């Protein structure tokens, strides 16, 4: 199903409305986020680091999902924006740690925090952000009482565990050079690493907040999962294509030997000789992998249909997300926020 067809089926917001909503919710979140980050006493070697990543922009996808869900389920922007700030602070803290774990050099077009200040100070800043996120979360929940707060702590602990498991899977597969992965393995990793923190948790927080704890947060798990898997595949595909707007190193995932759906596919469909060369490539350290080999692998993926397969599966996952959207949100009164949530599905393929 094409993006346009999906949008029609689901009463999804058009791309311009998606961008406007994300900008509006992003701005509101940023104001709140800065208020919380500045509320702390001045601390050398810390304050500047905390403010760095949030100041670099970003899509503000997670806060927007949270706010839109909160409003779609009956809440207000004012109440949801603190939760959204908590999500964004936590996300930025985790990004700092991710960059260290991945040895990344660039984040949003500038040197990573550990490249600028060294790993020890960067880790410390990441820790501080993760715990700082608790404050706006607690403040958002205080008016709703202990039961709702316990519900939020419950889903947050689940998210933290799932995300850590997903990160561990991806790092472990790469570091231990695990080769015989299946597509189901990939989906499981994407569920944990991408979907839970990026889509499911923000949607659940918004749902709980907006409904004052009356709606079941399990409602949005499947929608968030399929959305997250489609998002991750599309992200991996963009890394393999010449896209000047993408902003990341072309074929960087191949240099990293990242276990993508396309890599799993190409390994399954290539000849024995090609597989032997592929295994040799994957067994090398990153610095040893030559640009020629990377280009060979990219060409192999193209020739054997792995790129097309990735596109088909991403579209299929988006279709499943649309199906789950109808089940989870179909009973809500139509609104701009409900349309925004629906619009996330086609937006995956149109985002810049």
């Amino acid at each position, binding site marked *: 199903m094409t993006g346009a067809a999906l949008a029609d089926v689901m009463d999804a917001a058009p791309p311009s409305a998606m961008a406007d909503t994300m900008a509006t919710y992003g701005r509101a979140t940023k104001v709140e986020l800065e208020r919380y980050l500045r509320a702390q006493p001045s601390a050398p070697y810390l304050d500047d680091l905390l403010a760095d990543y949030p100041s670099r922009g970003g899509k503000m996808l997670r806060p927007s999902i949270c706010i839109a869900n909160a409003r779609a*389920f*009956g809440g207000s922007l004012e109440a949801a924006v603190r939760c959204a700030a908590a999500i964004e602070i936590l996300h930025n803290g985790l990004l700092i740690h991710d960059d260290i774990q991945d040895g990344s050099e660039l984040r949003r077009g500038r040197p990573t925090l550990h490249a600028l200040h060294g790993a020890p100070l960067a880790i410390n800043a990441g820790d501080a952000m993760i*715990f700082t996120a*608790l404050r706006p979360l*607690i403040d958002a*929940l*205080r*008016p709703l*009482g*202990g*039961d*709702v*707060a*316990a519900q939020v*702590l*419950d889903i947050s602990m*689940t998210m933290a565990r799932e995300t850590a498991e997903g990160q561990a899977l991806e790092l*472990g597969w790469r570091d*231990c*050079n*695990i*080769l*015989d992965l*299946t*597509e*189901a*393995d990939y*989906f*499981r990793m994407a*569920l944990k690493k991408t979907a839970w923190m990026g889509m499911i948790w923000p949607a659940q927080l918004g749902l709980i907040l*907006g*409904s*004052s*704890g*009356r*709606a*079941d947060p399990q*409602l949005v*798990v*499947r929608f968030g*999962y399929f959305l997250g*898997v489609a998002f991750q595949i599309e992200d991996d595909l963009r890394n393999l294509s010449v896209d000047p707007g993408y902003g990341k190193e072309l074929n960087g995932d191949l240099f990293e030997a990242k276990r993508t759906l396309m890599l799993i*596919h190409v390994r*399954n*469909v290539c000849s*024995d000789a090609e597989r032997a060369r592929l295994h040799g490539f*994957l*067994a090398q350290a990153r610095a040893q992998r030559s640009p020629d080999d990377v280009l060979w692998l990219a060409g192999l993926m193209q020739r*054997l*249909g792995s790129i097309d*397969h990735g596109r088909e*599966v991403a*579209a*299929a*996952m988006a279709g*499943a997300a649309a199906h789950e959207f109808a089940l989870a949100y*179909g*009973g*809500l*009164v139509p609104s701009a926020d409900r349309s925004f949530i629906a619009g996330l599905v086609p937006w995956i393929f149109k985002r810049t």
Partner: protein
Amino acid sequence: MTIRKGKAGDAGRPSPGTEADGRVRRPAAAGRAPNRAGPKGAAPKAKTPPEPKVSEAVAHAVKMGYDVIAENIRQGREAAERFRQGEYRLRDAPGDLEVASLRLLQLARELSTTTFDVCERLLKELGAQRPPQDRTDSVPKFREAAPAATPAPVKTASPSPPAQATMQVTVRFEGAPKAIAHTESLTRPRLPTAASGVSAAPLAPSSARGAAIAGVRFEMDASVEGIVAVVTVPKGQAHGFYSSLVHAEGDPIPLGVLTIELPK
């Protein structure tokens, strides 16, 4: 099959069909043979139906996608059930995990006492909040608004409180190696409470003679389950039974009675 550093046939490789690293297995025949025809696998049929058709590979991927989330939800529910029923114990985990967890707990306690204190305080603060009057009268309950007839469980803002569970108590004596503890458990505090938030009045003697024992403090010890009561018995303390009410900070209802015996 797990191949490390690209070398096939490692001794550590699990036998075919087993699950290494808990990964999902596909039947050996599927997707293993080279497939030059591309992801759709089979050659195109002579007459394709006019309506769009889901390719086998994509249909398989979607099915796997649903299997993955179904399994994840099942595991999540199972874990949640265990935690909610309070049945989870470290001893359920394998030995090495238990040791690692205990070390981690200890390390975390040493490094992050302040952080845990802050979290604990926040939790207490939240727990003490009363839920507001139902603010969502104007919002239809989700499933009631849904067109589907299937009713869904709607959580109320204030479910009836669960019965209070108990916690194990280990009594350690200082200055009286032969002393005996007669208390093995206490009611668990209603709110998250640090061990330092649990206290006991001086242990009063059951008979008229003998002074009370004032030295009672509570501690956590990751190597034992529950809470540890440390009783310091002064030299020359008269033998007999001593007891006292135990309270959690901010809760007027006692958690139980701590009773010890100093034998002759």
